[in-house]
């Protein structure tokens, strides 16, 4: 038994990591829907989910149960095989793309092995990711086609046209970063930003790719983010599922859990894009502060955030309307504050947590921007969408590549 474990250790560790990451990603997805509804509601002066659980915190659970137990009719005249294949493809590809993303710099030492945060450390990391997302288009297109209905067909057509158009600028806008890093490996792209000189000799935030290098990649970042939003079919580029015109677009004929699969796929690709933004342009897990002793106090930021947040949740919880809330919220608050205090007590854990802390904070900021835009921006018209893709983003991102290449020739990669 033990020899089996030691010979197949890598396989077993990877399987455990996959299971763990799937669980985390699906939970985060569920609470991302809650977060989105809450933020959009507050933008529009509403309360958002409030009934199921304290502050609507059990709403994702209720939604999940509803998805599972709803009737799942298959419309007449659908192409059965493709109809079932489409949501599967969407979800599988969206979840696979998470596998290449590294979440932290240092490995965990467990059972005498170094276990890195992140499933696959692929040399062609960014290319593998683009390959997976390139296939993701089929989920939408085939769902629209197989449904045997006019609105999904229009949604699917729009989706595939939009994704073809924006994939070009999405890929081109990354080339500047790749030129500066000289690698496709996501881990090495982050490490290259750590060793950069930085603007005005300031390390930390000014050695990230957006602000530093021979040519700051801020234009590249803007192109990347806009194209990525279009690729994930989110507002203001959500034409494939424009409610006012197409009922629900490509997923109109899908119900119950097959609809949920599209839903989860969309939110998962939001997370992937946010991770990519953080990795490629914002230094991944690097702290925005220089690694000098003057800034050493910033290592206590996780505790400084967790403890007051926990105390606030306790304070909010003891005055909550329902008894359930008065039980759950203080418990959650105590746990959070205790975790923050524990970080102060175990400096090793605190050091380890720095990388993932900054990485997740950056990802969270981008997710918030996603939701923020959904709450504020109107949807683009179809011709505007095509104009932005082909006449603005593509030329600008190509120009960015050329200028970056010349800047590297002149001043060197760093």
């Amino acid at each position, binding site marked *: 038994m033990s020899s089996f474990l030691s010979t197949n250790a890598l396989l077993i560790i990877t399987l455990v990591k996959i299971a763990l990451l799937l669980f985390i990603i699906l939970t985060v997805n569920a609470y991302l829907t809650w977060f989105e509804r809450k933020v959009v509601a507050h933008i529009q002066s509403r309360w958002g989910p409030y009934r199921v659980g304290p502050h609507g915190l059990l709403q994702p659970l209720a939604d999940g149960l509803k998805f599972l137990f709803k009737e799942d009719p298959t419309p007449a005249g659908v*192409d059965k095989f493709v109809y079932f294949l489409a949501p599967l493809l969407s979800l599988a590809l969206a979840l696979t793309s998470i596998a290449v993303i590294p979440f932290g710099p240092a490995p965990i030492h467990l059972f005498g092995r170094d276990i890195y945060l992140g499933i696959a450390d692929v040399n*062609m990391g960014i290319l593998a990711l683009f*390959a997976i997302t390139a*296939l993701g*288009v089929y989920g939408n297109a085939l769902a629209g086609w197989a449904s045997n209905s006019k609105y999904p067909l229009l949604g699917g*057509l729009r989706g*595939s046209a939009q994704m*073809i158009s924006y994939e070009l600028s999405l*890929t081109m806008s990354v080339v500047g970063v790749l030129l500066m890093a000289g690698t496709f490996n996501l881990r090495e792209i982050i490490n290259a930003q750590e060793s950069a000189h930085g603007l005005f000799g300031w390390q930390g935030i000014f050695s990230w790719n957006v602000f530093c290098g021979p040519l700051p990649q801020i234009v590249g970042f803007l192109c990347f983010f806009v194209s990525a939003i279009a690729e994930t079919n989110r507002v203001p580029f959500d034409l494939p599922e424009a409610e006012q015109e197409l009922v629900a677009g490509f997923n109109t004929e899908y119900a119950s859990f097959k609809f949920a699969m599209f839903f989860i796929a969309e939110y998962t690709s939001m997370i992937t894009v946010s991770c990519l933004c953080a990795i490629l342009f914002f230094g991944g897990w690097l702290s925005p502060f220089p690694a000098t002793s003057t800034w050493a106090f910033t290592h206590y930021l996780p505790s400084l955030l967790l403890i007051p947040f926990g105390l606030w949740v306790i304070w909010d919880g003891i005055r909550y309307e329902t008894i359930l809330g008065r039980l759950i919220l203080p418990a959650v608050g105590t746990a959070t504050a205790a975790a923050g205090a524990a970080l102060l007590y175990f400096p090793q854990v605190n050091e380890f947590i720095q990388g993932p802390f900054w990485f997740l904070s950056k990802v969270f900021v981008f997710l918030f921007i996603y939701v923020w835009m959904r709450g504020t921006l109107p949807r683009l018209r179809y011709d505007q969408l095509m104009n932005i893709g082909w006449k603005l983003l593509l030329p600008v991102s190509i120009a960015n590549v050329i200028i970056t290449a010349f800047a590297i020739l002149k001043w060197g990669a760093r």
Partner: protein
Amino acid sequence: MTPQLGIFCVLAALSVLGALSLILQKHPIHSALSLIVVMVSLAGLYLLMGAEFVAAVQIIVYGGAIMVLFVFVIMLLNAGVEEYTNLSKLAGIAGIPLTVALAGFIAAAIGRSGEAVQAAAQTGAVSSTRGISTMLFKDFVYPFELTSVLILVAILGAIVLAQREK
């Protein structure tokens, strides 16, 4: 059986089955899907040879961009189910012998240069981006640029044809 051989067998079977299904399916979308299966399993075979870059580009360009356009056009034109034709006389007389001859030639070529093919498959130099770009932009720069011109001509031709119909 090593894991590599097992993966190779699965991928090879998938690509052959996909190619057969591409021809035998009656609906254009199903044929296009079969072609995507072929493309992706070929990418898997490249990956098995250690050519990561080629594998990724195979999926991005063929599996992603080109096949999405195929599917897009089939959906846009709403192409219906097709029927099998009877074997035409030309196909019976010329096609089948030619097919057999082609298969024979390929088999002979592989059989004769068995070691050379394996050696070519195992060179890791082609897998790195640096190696590929030196090959493309230094060793084979003229063929590469000529191919670009060829593609440009094809694009211009497509535009001219599309304009004429108006």
